[in-house]
């Protein structure tokens, strides 16, 4: 789980140095454009290849971690599975479970693959953003883009408390594992009901403990001068390179839209 969350990769790459706002807008632009593009994928794949090639160093460092992370959206992708049946087109298979009449169409399959690919690409793009931007800087960029402070604070804290939650869960699981001893020749673990009860108690514990910890972390932030706004030291004045990158990204997005709609 931690590998899933520890995303910032501390190297100096061209993308690391880009202005935050450019990165953020490019990512959002890509994801929105991606969702809006027609289902013909050629253009998008080209764009993806370009992005993937952009920074070999990041991919090298991120390595397997990035690959694993990129499946974080898998459940959402699978939610799109119904289009396989719902899209009108030439019928290629029929399936009648429980009296349902499900017809798989060729257009449906293509569309489903397209959704999978596009979702995966969007996640890739988001990973690229988070791998090259540290989180306080990201929230700071949101502030510069005139997102309300309250909203940004909520995002910042959700992020921090995600770690809190994961850490507490790890602690609890470790405590349970270290005391789940089994004598030789005995069946360990107790009955199903008992186990369910333990799991339920642990869930409650996790909530209470995470809240208490979140409280204390908040105290620690206040103790060090936090007054509702996260500050960052990452440079943020638009420079020539930033404008160029913005323009390039805009062109790329436009191209994808054009190719995607043919």
């Amino acid at each position, binding site marked *: 789980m931690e590998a899933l969350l*520890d995303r*910032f990769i*501390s190297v100096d790459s061209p993308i690391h140095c880009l202005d935050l706002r450019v990165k953020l807008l490019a990512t959002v632009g890509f994801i929105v454009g991606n969702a809006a593009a027609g289902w013909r994928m050629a253009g998008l794949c080209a764009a993806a290849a370009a992005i993937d090639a952009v920074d070999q160093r990041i991919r090298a460092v991120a390595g397997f971690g990035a690959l694993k992370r990129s499946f974080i959206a898998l459940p959402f992708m699978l939610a799109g599975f119904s289009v396989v049946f719902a899209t009108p087109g030439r019928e290629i298979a029929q399936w009648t479970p429980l009296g349902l009449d499900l017809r798989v169409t060729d257009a449906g399959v293509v569309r489903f693959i397209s959704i999978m690919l596009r979702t995966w690409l969007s996640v890739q793009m988001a990973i690229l953003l988070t791998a090259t931007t*540290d*989180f*306080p800087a990201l929230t700071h960029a949101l502030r510069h883009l005139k997102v309300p402070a309250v909203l940004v604070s909520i995002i910042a804290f959700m992020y*921090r408390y995600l*770690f809190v939650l994961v*850490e507490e869960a790890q602690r609890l699981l470790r405590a349970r594992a270290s005391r789940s001893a089994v004598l030789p020749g005995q069946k360990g673990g107790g009955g199903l009901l008992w186990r369910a009860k333990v799991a339920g108690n642990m869930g409650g514990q996790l909530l209470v403990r995470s809240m208490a*910890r979140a409280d*204390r*972390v908040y*105290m*620690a*932030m*206040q*103790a*060090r*001068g*936090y*007054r509702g706004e996260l*500050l*960052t*030291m990452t440079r943020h004045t638009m420079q020539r390179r930033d404008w160029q990158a913005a323009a390039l990204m805009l062109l790329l997005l436009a191209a994808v839209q054009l190719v995607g709609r043919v």
Partner: protein
Amino acid sequence: MPIHHDNSPPPQAQTGAPSILVRELNYRYPDGFHALRGLSVAIAPGERVGLVGPNGAGKSTFMLHLNGLLSGEGEIRIAGLPLSKEKLPEVRALVGMVFQNPDDQLFSPTVFDDVAFGPLHMGYGEEEVRQRVAEALAAVGMADFAERMPYHLSVGQKKRVSLATVLAMGPELLVLDEPSAGLDPRGRRQLIELLDGMALTMLVSTHDMRLVDELFPRILVMDAGQIVYDGETSAVLNDDAFLRAHGLEKP
């Protein structure tokens, strides 16, 4: 290295107001537990005071009051300032508070970010922040760890970084909750030397009676939410019966 006590008056001594002034402080936790029962104490600028007492005596609870993280009934003034809403940011810049559990203290993606958090939010410029971080990390012997993730450090290392996070803020008053717990002998020795070399007001809770003996001429003994002794360390350390009565022992 011989221990020497630096008794030169610290810069803010002239203002006259005590660094910490607490009168009749009472605090109940939300679940109703009466954790502080009528605490009163005054600590002069530049004084170094040890805070001891058995587990659950209320040491941590008391310390959390000193920069307004908890607020019970009674009066608290830090360098003459009340802990009112307007004065809190000022007070928090004066008080360097290190929590008992380093996992509560460290919350940033890297050690550098964590140490930079305080100075950055106090409004210092980038150059100044970088310099303060470098100095603070060097002071606690963690200069090589700036880019590491705080969650992945050992307990002793986390403790040191925690201390660095407040040193970087340049406080006038250090409030440390069990700073030596979890440190190896060398780390503990370094901590003692570090604290000894700083001309700050200090209130340090600990179960390490040798540390108290070496660093703190004055001691507060807490038990069951009250201060049961406030005075010279040497006197208390020789009173076996008293020490035993409050779950303490001779160094």
